């Protein structure tokens, strides 16, 4: 199918393109930019006047809830949500049920996703069997089945010896390890940041040191093993400072932040609003400011949605009993745009953090629009605002702290491999 996308503001952060130009798509790939290829005859023309035409978004963490949690969401609904949010590639964490620790499960997931013909799914494999932190998984087999990296999701990894071995093993074969820095013991049972809000509300707390201690351990082990490690979901100002120092030292470490943490802090919990129960917890205003600045100056490489659909039963209960998590695929773009406006970051640089940068971490040639590239495109209206309401969300998870709030950025068209998979 030949598609011509005209009059749009074409932004390709990786190649430094930011101008009005026409994008030509044919046979699933980018055929040309600016001038039509010889003998061009479009089957479909999209008028993108007033819209931004950019690479499809790449989300490094989206829980699809399959296998095992189908009552919360299914691949069908969440893939709909992804493309409605302009996300054309996503990585899903291994904490499914059963966890992604066997090649068969990974293959099944990839197969299911492929058959839906929506976004590309890149499973992240479990670092240890069952995510129990006792024995290594067969990383080679998992990599062959399609795992792009290995992580421990949100499960504690108390055994530092095992962590060390896992990192050595991964380094041997060049596998990437993604870790969320959280000490296994400090702050166990905590549901909110250890600060004034948790003290006032009487909520069990997670101190910032739970993150910084784990971060110190991982950085030290990364230095020793030389493994490529990506730190997931930074939440503290001190953590950002540690990453800055580690990068300055020349260590091959990268990190990300969840979109929610760029905007919310513990005060937003208000009177026990379980929508704000997240992992890692929303921290203080100083932490939020450091995360925003860190993403702007490149200390933090990218932002992800950390999409975690939670049903109403998981939220309509007292805070300490509620399930942490929020729906996020459809909010990745709006929340990134909002962050960029606040930090005065130009649109191309902002988009880089949800396209080219995540692609680099995944080790994929994606997140850009060079000629010959698979045509994964996101066409959106940066000026359109919409109110976050359950009806407006395609995900089965309708729970988000942003319910009732207005956000900027409406996706109009999403193309995956040259096919229009979403139109609004």
């Amino acid at each position, binding site marked *: 199918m030949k598609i011509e996308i005209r009059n749009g503001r074409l932004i390709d952060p990786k190649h430094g393109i930011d101008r009005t130009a026409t994008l030509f798509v044919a046979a699933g790939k980018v055929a040309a930019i600016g001038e039509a290829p010889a003998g061009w005859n479009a089957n479909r023309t999209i008028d993108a006047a007033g819209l931004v035409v950019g690479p499809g978004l790449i989300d490094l963490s989206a829980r699809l809830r399959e296998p095992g949690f189908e009552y919360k969401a299914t691949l069908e609904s969440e893939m709909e949500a992804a493309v409605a949010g302009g996300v054309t590639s996503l990585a899903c964490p291994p904490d499914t049920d059963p966890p992604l620790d066997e090649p068969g499960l990974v293959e099944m997931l990839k197969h299911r996703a492929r058959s839906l013909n929506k976004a590309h799914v890149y499973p992240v494999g479990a670092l240890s069997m069952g995510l129990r932190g006792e024995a290594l998984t067969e990383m080679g087999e998992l990599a062959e089945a399609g795992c792009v990296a290995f992580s421990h999701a949100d499960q504690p990894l108390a055994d530092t010896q095992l962590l060390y071995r896992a990192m050595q093993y991964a380094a041997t074969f060049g596998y990437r390890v993604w870790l969320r820095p959280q000490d296994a013991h400090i702050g166990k049972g905590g549901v909110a940041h*250890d*600060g*004034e809000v*948790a*003290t*006032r*509300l*009487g*909520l*069990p*707390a997670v*101190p910032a040191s739970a993150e910084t201690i784990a971060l110190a351990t991982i950085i030290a082990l990364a230095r020793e093993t030389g493994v490529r490690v990506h730190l997931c979901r930074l939440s503290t100002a001190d953590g950002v400072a540690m990453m800055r120092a580690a990068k300055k030292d020349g260590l091959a470490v990268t990190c990300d932040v969840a979109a929610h943490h760029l905007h919310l802090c513990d005060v937003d919990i*208000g*009177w*026990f609003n379980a929508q704000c129960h997240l992992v890692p917890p929303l921290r203080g205003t100083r932490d939020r400011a450091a995360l925003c600045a860190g993403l702007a100056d490149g200390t933090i490489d990218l932002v992800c949605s950390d999409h975690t659909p939670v049903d109403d*039963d998981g939220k*309509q*209960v*007292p*805070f*300490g*009993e509620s399930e942490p998590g929020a729906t996020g695929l459809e909010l990745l773009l709006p929340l990134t745009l909002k962050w960029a406006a606040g930090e005065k970051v130009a649109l191309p640089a902002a988009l880089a953090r949800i396209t080219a940068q995540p692609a680099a971490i995944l080790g994929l040639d994606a997140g850009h629009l060079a000629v010959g590239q698979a045509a994964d495109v996101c066409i959106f209206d940066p000026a359109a605002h919409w109110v976050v309401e359950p009806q407006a969300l395609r995900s089965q998870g309708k729970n988000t702290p942003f319910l009732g709030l207005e956000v900027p950025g409406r996706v109009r068209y999403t193309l995956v491999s040259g096919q229009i998979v979403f139109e609004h």
Partner: protein
Amino acid sequence: MRNPQLNADGGLTHLLTLEGLPADVIRQILDTAIPFTSIAMRDVKKVPLLRGKAVFNLFFENSTRTRTTFEIAAKRLSADVINLNIGASSTSKGETLLDTVDNLVAMNADMFVVRHAQSGAPHLIAAHLNRTGRNHVHVVNAGDGRHAHPTQGLLDLFTIRHYKRDFRNLTVAIVGDVLHSRVARSLIHGLTTVGTPEVRAIGPQTLLPTALQALGVRVFNDMREGLKGCDVIVMLRLQSERMRGALLPSAGEFFKHYGLTPDKLAMAKPDAIVMHPGPMNRGVEIDSAVADGERSVILPQVTFGIAVRMAVLSIVAGN
């Protein structure tokens, strides 16, 4: 964000926490408790204020003391009282907390007195009732997790005012496990709201929450230092679980540093009063000589508790 405890006219319609309550709402409750103390001394201890109203004691955490006091208070207001002991887990029957509440409202409940192990449970119920337009049903928090025990805070304030008259001259010390104590949090909010110039917390670092200063409290780890010049000393109960969680090595060590003995009491003002929300662990947080001594007002606290709860139930029911 409007205070979920107040209705559109600023009247108290739920009592969830003392935090953020206007000072004159607190004073009104304390003032209204005074005539109720007299009622307790008559032969006929009842007044007809809540006749025909159904008060449900929803206790998800066991507590005979608090439940009994609320029951007495409600019955003295001529209300019908129904006790529901749902035990440790609200979902033990598979029914969620809000489902339970909806069912009881359908059975014409007018008021819920709620005790729950989770901080925020009464807020959840009140928000649910407000959101579903059931403004005539009221929630009174009888203790939620570590968060709040507002009626205890109020009866502590009533006791202090009874013996000391004016909060604005007082130094009050709260001693013990503040970290896990909803009683301490409520008392701190109450004292700061009514203008107490100095509120102190005394305990080991393991038992004091991180951001206590932000609540307007002066922190002491040394009890003798902390008691100097105090007018009121409130001793908190130390639960045995604290020893298991590596927060404290032993009860004996705690008593040595933080138990209220006559010689430590001597550091406070000569007319200082000693309070304890109960039940007491003699020899752990308080020496019997002090508990039974002339500065102790621990027993009067209990009597005042019924009058204060009658005041709370009446005010909330009338809004």
